[in-house]
């Protein structure tokens, strides 16, 4: 759910950019430290970023008839951790604006806040908290709730920008949430199932690769 170029009033666009900045800067610092200690990680980070972009460009089998794409928020958070994801996610959003005309440059901050920061942090926390319930349940919940969180944040952003004339922010929030729910709720479920398939496959065949990523997540 990308907010398109120019949709938000300039002040809102600026405010969301300011809100997203500390997370991205923290991620950049973290990447800087990782790369300083292991220069070769640069390539690993680059391939991970390119993978995240391609993942978001894959078409999900249509549920509601419209063509839709996975956000990759849950998978990214589980694989790379939310700090690194803030940077990789923002870069992916930049490429989606520059190569696909999805989203925009002025709305990059707002989109990064929902898709590269809140979504991954929610997914990551859910994944951490559900570690007792078995991998599939945890991964499903992380990916589905991460996806839902991004859509809720986007609705909040739009409702703040365009409050309802009669009922204000609350009414606008209900309107945006309900109109996006039509496509986003089924999508979140599909993305949850999809992420379970991916993670189970990786757990079966790529244990070494997963442990190679452990230090990106900060679980040394």
């Amino acid at each position, binding site marked *: 759910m990308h907010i*398109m170029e120019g949709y938000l009033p300039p002040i809102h666009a600026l405010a969301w950019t300011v809100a997203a900045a500390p997370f991205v800067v923290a991620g950049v610092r973290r990447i800087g430290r990782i790369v300083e200690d292991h220069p070769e990680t640069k390539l690993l980070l680059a391939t991970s970023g390119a*993978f995240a972009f391609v993942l978001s460009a894959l078409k999900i089998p249509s549920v509601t008839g419209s063509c839709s794409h996975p956000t990759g928020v849950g998978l990214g958070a589980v694989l790379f951790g939310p700090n690194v994801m803030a940077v990789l996610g923002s870069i992916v959003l930049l*490429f989606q604006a520059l190569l696909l005309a999805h989203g925009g*440059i002025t709305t990059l901050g707002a989109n990064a806040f929902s898709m590269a920061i809140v979504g991954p942090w929610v997914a990551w926390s859910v994944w951490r908290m559900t570690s007792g319930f078995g991998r599939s349940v945890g991964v499903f919940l992380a990916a589905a709730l991460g996806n839902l969180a991004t859509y809720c944040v986007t609705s909040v952003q739009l409702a703040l920008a365009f409050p309802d004339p009669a009922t204000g922010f609350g009414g606008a929030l209900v309107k945006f949430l309900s109109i996006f729910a039509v496509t986003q709720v089924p999508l979140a479920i599909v993305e949850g199932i999809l992420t379970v398939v991916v993670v189970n*496959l990786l757990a079966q*065949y790529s244990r070494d690769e997963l442990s190679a990523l452990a230090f990106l997540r900060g679980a040394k």
Partner: protein
Amino acid sequence: MLAIDRHAWTNRWSDRHPLEKLVPAGGMLLAALVLPPWPAAPLIIAVMLVLTIVGARVPPKAALGTLAVPVGFLLTGIPVLALAVDVSVGVHIGLAPDGLRLAAEVTSRSLAATSCLVFLILTTPVAELVPMLGRLGVPKPVRELILLIYRLIFVFLERADVGRQAQVARLGYDGPRRSIRSLGWLAGSLFQRSLDRGRRLETGLAARGFTGDLPYLDSDRAASGALLVAGALLPAAVVAVSIAWTL
């Protein structure tokens, strides 16, 4: 593979200095955001499309098609902006007093802003935009990372395409259950391959004495001063027209 990228490298202005395109695109984008949408928005859309199609010789179909990408988002937004929910006496949904005007304003403002983005991305290759990020204070390691990701995206997109073709040929997308499983496997194998690729690149660089620096060539063309001024005059002209209109 990505049509926008192809046009960015092949249009008549792709060799021009990126600043010559960033100045008009950025200036018009700002104008689109701050000016009242009428008459600025239609004016900006017209100017940016003329620059893209007549100036840079991007095929009209590509320019209009790219401008139409966010139409789905716009159409979803219009009813939300135009309608109001009233809960004072039960739940009533009705046309908001200023709803249609607001919807028209937001829609035209976004389309005008998008036309600036369309001009920029159809005329300027990403590889030329990234060095400009340095002037915005984006640190060098991040710029390098962005450039590396840009190169690798195409490698992986091709892989994804080939993988999907192989799955389709084996009826992998027959029905929703199989589709989800196939897509999951595709994503999983892409991930394995991308990590493998990353490791091979690491080894290759280590064998060549990699110490952490990836130097790349920055083009040393200078931006033409006259064109920069012309690019800055365009948004100024739109501002002037807007002011004259309201007087």
